[in-house]
């Protein structure tokens, strides 16, 4: 995608699908004003999450929550537990964006749009897709008998409101990016993830209260004071700190330029695969046993039955396979996400080369090897973060608390806050 402003674009960028887009902005805003705008818009987004869909009565909403929506809503972390304008959050938008991101290099018309820099057309496609997808999901949430006797189709009316809610949330996210501090979409995602924190705090206080003098009837089964006040906070802080360190850790390769006067560094991150290996490992371990069960039924082979039994979630084989898959996918993903040939070529095009490595194919090979070695340590770290809640649970910490010492939510939240503070620091300069 290239520059909408011809004055600041170049021929070299317009021919490249991944080329830069110049977006010059007016002068910087005061930091305090940006922070206030960010806080205000985040508050507005949370308000949308609680504002009930127009036309529903309290009794009906309660009925839905009990009978129809519970299964859908409660499985999605961070989603508002009520039928509100913003009940679906920004998840439909994220889903469509991911689909388009994956489709652009594969589907020729989209690839051509991206190559020509027509990002406005791609944005329109994303918005239309988000609207349609949200409408379908929202329409399916409302049973046909809702609003019977009304002169219009109430489920459609409610679904349209929820589409507007998603659009408003996404617009708020982009407004934060433009006028506030940090990336608005990421902050909204983090806010949805952190919406579960009050529940965790309440559970923590209740458990702590149960340990007080004169009130510990189940002390033998429940957590000890050590687990509550030392183990849980210690593990939580350790994971947050280690996650921040691993996200920021990079091997900085010295780059020298042909004039011999300039030098710079190209960073190769220690953990560039992010959370994707975790998602992939979880999917495989859900898919594998289901497949084994299918073959066990169809072919009646005892081998598949044994496999299914050993890979159920409470068995050691499941956890060992989970850990190994995380490391494996981490290395695999890292090698694929860094297009080493492209990096080597781009460095050479700018007249640069990695110090001590000949430019061209040997640079590509060097980058590939470096990435593989670094990603191995990233994979081991991700494995430890994912397995820690289970270990703590095994040591006696209730799972409702142990789950906050690892997993996707904490990784996403830490990444969001690292970027937020990076931009905060930059804005103070």
């Amino acid at each position, binding site marked *: 995608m290239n520059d909408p402003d011809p004055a600041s674009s170049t021929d070299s960028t317009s021919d490249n699908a991944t080329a830069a887009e*110049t977006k010059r902005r007016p002068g910087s805003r005061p930091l305090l004003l940006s922070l206030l705008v960010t806080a205000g818009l985040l508050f507005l987004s949370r308000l949308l999450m609680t504002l009930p869909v127009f036309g529903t009565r309290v009794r009906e909403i309660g009925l839905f929550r009990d009978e129809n929506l519970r299964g859908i809503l409660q499985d999605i972390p961070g989603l508002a537990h009520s039928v509100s304008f913003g009940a679906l959050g920004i998840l439909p938008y994220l889903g469509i964006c991911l689909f388009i991101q994956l489709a652009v290099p594969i589907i020729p018309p989209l690839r051509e749009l991206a190559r020509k820099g027509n990002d406005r057309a791609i944005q329109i496609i994303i918005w239309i897709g988000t609207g349609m997808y949200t409408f379908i999901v929202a329409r399916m949430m409302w049973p046909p008998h809702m609003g019977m006797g009304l002169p219009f189709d109430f489920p459609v009316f409610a679904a349209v409101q929820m589409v507007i809610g998603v659009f408003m949330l996404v617009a708020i996210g982009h407004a934060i990016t433009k006028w506030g501090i940090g990336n608005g979409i990421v902050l909204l995602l983090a806010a949805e993830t952190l919406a579960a924190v009050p529940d965790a705090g309440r559970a923590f206080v209740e458990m702590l209260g149960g340990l007080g003098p004169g009130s510990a009837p189940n002390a033998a089964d429940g957590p000890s004071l050590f687990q509550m006040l030392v183990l849980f906070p210690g593990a939580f802080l350790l994971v947050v700190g280690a996650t921040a360190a691993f996200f920021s850790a990079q091997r900085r*390769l010295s780059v020298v330029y042909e004039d011999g006067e*300039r030098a710079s560094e190209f960073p190769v991150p220690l953990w*560039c695969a992010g959370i994707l290996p975790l998602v992939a490992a979880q999917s495989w371990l859900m898919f594998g046993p289901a497949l084994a069960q299918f073959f066990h039924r169809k072919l009646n082979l005892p081998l598949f039955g044994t496999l299914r039994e050993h890979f159920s979630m409470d068995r050691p084989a499941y956890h060992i396979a989970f850990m190994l898959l995380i490391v494996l996918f981490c290395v695999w993903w890292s090698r694929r996400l860094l297009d080493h040939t492209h990096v080597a070529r781009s460095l050479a095009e*700018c007249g640069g080369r990695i110090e001590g490595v000949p430019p061209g194919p040997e640079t590509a090979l*060097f980058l590939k090897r470096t990435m593989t070695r670094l990603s191995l340590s990233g994979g081991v770290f991700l494995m430890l973060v994912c397995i820690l809640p289970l270990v703590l649970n095994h040591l006696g910490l209730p799972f409702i608390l142990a789950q906050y010492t690892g997993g996707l939510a904490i990784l996403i939240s830490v990444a969001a806050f690292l970027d937020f503070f990076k931009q905060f620091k930059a804005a103070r*300069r």
Partner: protein
Amino acid sequence: METLFTFWDIEDARLARTLLEAHNILVVLPDEIMVQANWGLIYAMGGIRLQVPADAAERAAEIYDREREPRAADFAPPRCHVCGAEEIEAATLGRSWALALIALLKIPIPYRDGYVCLSCKHTQQGTEKPADHDATASGLGNPYDPPRSTAEPASEDDGSEGSPSS
């Protein structure tokens, strides 16, 4: 800080930062870690922003435009092995499908490094070791092979890593 560019690929953003930092321009990529954490958020986030101090923005844009001009001396003119056309582009064959399958169905498939001829659409797997390129049937070698006159002396396989600083 002022947003100067928006990138759709984290590698391009990092390369641009490397280039601008070589000219002593302070560069911040405020979305870098989140994209690193979840690659699938790039489009939703509106791209990866590259920010520079407002007073250095003009100079940074000018340097970026100037330095991104391809240098013929660094690589031999790339040619297709089949039709000999020079209009070819680097490609990681099957990379898009691999990424799509892993993200949507969580099924990893292998892919190869290579190039695509824009003229005859021929796809050719490219090996990375210069020593292997001479064995190609057409004799044209790998499209990214350094020109013979300026190429570094062929080194041992492991010797190519040199001694870059950490």
